[in-house]
């Protein structure tokens, strides 16, 4: 878990002690220089005194730091041993078969729905406290999404659970076949802070619908929602099969040591690698829902007003750019850029007023570390003078104004990492078609957006750009369509979910073949003869005439 450790914060007590010791020895050297005539005895008593006080100091610091460590883990106390216990309990629940029944699954989904209905207010408060998320956004993007996904699962569950008939061929005749979905077992869901409710509960719905026992690890970076989820899920759902483990890196590491039947992770590519490497030790399949720089290609023959509204709303109206499907940057032609920028600015004012930093309709930046990262992107020398709108930051309130950057060089920070915030670079190209090449020269994004009225460009975009999802003439909307798989490809992730795809993500499709005892082709069995070879060829060919020929001994 070394890769996770840089996430740890706070000063190291040992380092602090070393600093003190260093300072003291420096003063001692100074002291000797000033009084070179000091006697041996004086020297000895002096150094003994210093030594004693240093020891006392070190001891105090060590004790203090131990106390600190104890305190910091005291509320959770979730270590490998606790993870072992948890796993044992869930495994025995799963093996008892309780979670497999339709009744259990639907009753859990119903309680989940009830939980959402009862706790509207608490959820909005938690989202406001963690992210200053406007109630409206909380409702549209989180609560309503989950409710509809829960309702869909309840409505379709019986269908999803039904075995699917499969055709058989002449080679296995007479037989019948079906594909039976079965739960994987005990699954782990690690979710993210930007949509702390949606990204936690939506996969849980899939896992329950598929009949698994579940552990949810909400993000510690949205603490209010994390503890609310622990409380609510504990109150409404079956605790012998569904658990919430709160915590940060140590707790996640302890969880990842366990053998899971599936790990569903939402977050960034760096941690995803750690998760997948841990999963490899137990051959656990993973779904990785990551992000990436999702581009918006804007052609010039469009309805400008609608385009600008949709982009502004998708970029700043969805958790202020902190969404994995948020537009990351825009590509447009050199001529069209000024027109587009004017319209974007106009709609920014229309949506969020002249003073967006104080708009109640805009979320804040998730947490201080994230704020510092965004500030670094803004302060990058390579984009100095290129900020054409916004750029204001307010560290104490974790707010950053909607910011537009024109023509940031390709090697600038803002164009090399996922922005995940309210900064929007605009890249200009000579011809709009060059945009396709630009996108293809970078890692595959989670989403790619195009605004155009040209059919040919649409076709080229859809067939040539590889991305998790593609939306034409809108942004982020595919996320809401439960008949579309939601997930990345390449750097933007592995696997997909939403609707039936969620059920599939947490199911194993078992192949089942039924045979009777009659109708046994002797050609399958030794002793082997040339005649059997001919018959086999005909059987695998599916050619009835060939079979008859072979059976009668004609070659």
């Amino acid at each position: 878990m070394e890769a996770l450790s840089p996430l740890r914060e706070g000063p190291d007590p040992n380092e602090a002690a070393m600093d003190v010791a260093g300072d003291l020895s420096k003063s001692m050297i100074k002291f000797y220089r000033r009084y070179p005539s000091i006697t041996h005895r004086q020297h000895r008593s002096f150094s003994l005194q210093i030594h004693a006080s240093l020891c006392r100091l070190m001891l105090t610091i060590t004790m203090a730091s131990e106390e600190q460590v104890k305190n910091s883990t005291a509320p959770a106390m979730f270590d490998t041993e606790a993870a072992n216990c948890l796993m044992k309990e869930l495994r025995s629940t799963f093996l008892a078969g309780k979670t497999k029944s339709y009744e259990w699954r639907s009753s859990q989904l119903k309680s989940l729905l009830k939980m959402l209905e009862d706790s509207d207010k608490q959820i909005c408060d938690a989202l406001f406290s963690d992210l200053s998320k406007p109630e409206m956004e909380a409702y549209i993007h989180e609560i309503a999404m989950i409710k509809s996904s829960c309702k869909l699962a309840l409505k379709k569950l019986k269908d999803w659970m039904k075995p699917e008939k499969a055709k058989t061929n002449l080679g296995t005749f007479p037989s019948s076949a079906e594909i039976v979905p079965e739960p994987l077992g005990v699954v782990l869901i690690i979710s993210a802070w930007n949509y702390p409710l949606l990204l936690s509960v939506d996969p849980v719905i899939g896992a329950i619908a598929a009949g698994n026992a579940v552990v949810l690890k909400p993000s510690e970076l949205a603490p209010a929602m994390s503890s609310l989820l622990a409380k609510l899920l504990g109150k409404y759902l079956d605790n012998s099969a569904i658990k919430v483990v709160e915590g940060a890196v140590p707790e996640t590491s302890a969880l990842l040591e366990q053998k899971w039947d599936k790990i569903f992770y939402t977050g960034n590519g760096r941690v995803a690698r750690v998760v997948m490497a841990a999963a490899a030790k137990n051959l656990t399949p993973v779904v990785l829902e990551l992000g990436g720089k999702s581009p918006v290609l804007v052609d010039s023959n469009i309805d400008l007003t609608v385009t600008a509204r949709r982009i502004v709303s998708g970029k700043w109206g969805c958790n202020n750019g902190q969404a994995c499907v948020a537009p990351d940057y825009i590509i447009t032609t050199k001529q069209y850029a000024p027109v587009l920028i004017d319209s974007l600015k106009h709609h920014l004012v229309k949506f969020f007023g002249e003073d967006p930093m104080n708009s109640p309709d805009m979320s804040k930046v998730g947490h201080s570390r994230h704020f510092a990262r965004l500030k670094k992107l803004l302060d990058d020398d390579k984009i100095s003078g290129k900020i054409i709108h916004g750029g204001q930051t307010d560290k104490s309130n974790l707010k950053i104004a909607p910011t537009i950057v024109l023509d940031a060089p390709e090697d600038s920070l803002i164009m090399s990492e996922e922005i995940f915030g309210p900064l929007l670079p605009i890249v200009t190209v000579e011809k709009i078609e060059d945009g396709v090449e630009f996108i293809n020269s970078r890692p595959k994004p989670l989403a790619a957006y195009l605004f155009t009225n040209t059919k040919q460009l649409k076709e080229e975009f859809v067939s040539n750009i590889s991305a998790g999802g593609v939306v034409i003439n809108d942004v982020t909307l595919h996320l809401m369509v439960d008949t579309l798989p939601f997930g990345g490809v390449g750097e933007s992730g592995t696997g997909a979910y939403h609707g039936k795809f969620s059920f599939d993500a947490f199911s194993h499709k078992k192949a089942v073949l039924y045979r009777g005892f009659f109708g046994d082709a002797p050609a399958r069995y030794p002793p082997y003869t040339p005649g059997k070879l001919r018959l086999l060829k005909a059987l695998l060919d599916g050619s009835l005439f060939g079979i008859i020929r072979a059976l009668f001994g004609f070659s």
Partner: protein
Amino acid sequence: MNADQEMRRSVEELRLTFKTGKTRTVGWRKAQLRAILRLIHENENTLFHLLQSELGKHPVESYRDEIGVVKKSVDHALNCIDQWMSPKKGRLPLVYFPASRQVLPEPLGVVLIIASWNFPIALTLDPLIGAISAGNTVVLKPSELSPNCASFLANILPSYLDPKAVKVIEGGREVSNQLLQYKWDKIFFTGSTKVGKIVMAAAANNLTPVTLELGGKCPAIFDFLPNSDLKVAAKRVASGKWGPCAGQAGIGIDYMLVEQKFASTVIEQLKKTIKRFYGDDAKNFKNLSKIINKGHFDRLRSFLEDSAVANCIVYGGSFDDTSLIIEPTILLDPPLDAEIMNEEIFGPLLPIITMDNIEESIEFINSKPKPLAIYAFTKNENFKKRILAETSSGSVTFNDTVIQFLCDELPFGGVGQSGIGRYHGKYSFDTFSHEKAVLERSFYFELEPWHPPWNNFKLQFLRLVYNYDYVGMLLLLLGLKRPSNS
């Protein structure tokens, strides 16, 4: 590091080919598939010969398990590819109007296929068919343990398939390790659980998705059967144990579960079947593949070094060091803590475990890691249902063995320790494709409440939208419904 550079150049070339877009065309894919068909057709005798010399496979067995399988897969892919490639379109709820959606399969890019030695042709070409059908460029790494088949493929493939898009790289562990360092868009691995973990860990560095086709101890449950069915069942057990490459198959039967009072009858019938199929001349078995190499031969022999295990042999047990052939061997109730009952056997030794009641076999199977396949010979419908509901495995086959492999419509792959992902037929195509979600909207009809600044009216409206309550929406828009605060 010359070899490394050369491999890198090959992969680079594949990436360039992929970028040209030529592998995406249906014409290219079909041409390549037909070329595979031509390859196995024109070289059938060479393949028979190679498989016979390298693994001792009889041509009929080779055709049944390898060449025929490839032929059938290509035929199926050629028949279905247009349908597989076409996007799945669908309608959307009215609130998104006007809009359309589709799920569009697209190739992943440059993929690596690492094959195994036990079916050196089928397990190399069958995944290749999927990768090509889906429009990828491919590196094939055949197993170094069947070197003749590997170099045959390396030599012959370029003259049939597009050499700029499909490359064969031969080599052992070092080459595999080197290949695993590169960034692939998919890794498809067939082999052991141990190596599977290494492959997945290497894939994690580049977030490469993997399909792992592993094995495991596949049990055969043998319920009480009337005499006529018993004969058929014994044939099928023999064919599922000693048939596919002398038990060296991931889906072969590993051990059998029988009721105590029925055991001797079953064993007698199996003995008869073995004698008919393979003869009983210990120096000259017919129709039986050999063990791939001395290492595996010794590994199998070491299972019997434990005298407690050796004492359980009720049939066979002879090992021929020179021909590397092991006699079909049956063991009755070896100790459950012996190695032979805890490791995948992957050879012609068949332990039979007896129990008082055949339904106990469910518990027995569940105490072990999830296998690739479960076989159950039974006429008891209730028991069938219990097996399906209470055990977990890649596949379940009732009253037969191994032939689920031939069903193009059934997904083939493991779960848990027996693997990740699936292939065959359409599933092969899916394994090597990304399902891209595509949503298209037009500029007309904009849902105002979708955008800030937020107010109560918009919240109320969206509540109705998510309930698909069109009447309510209309009333609200006409001002006939008062936005509430809730």
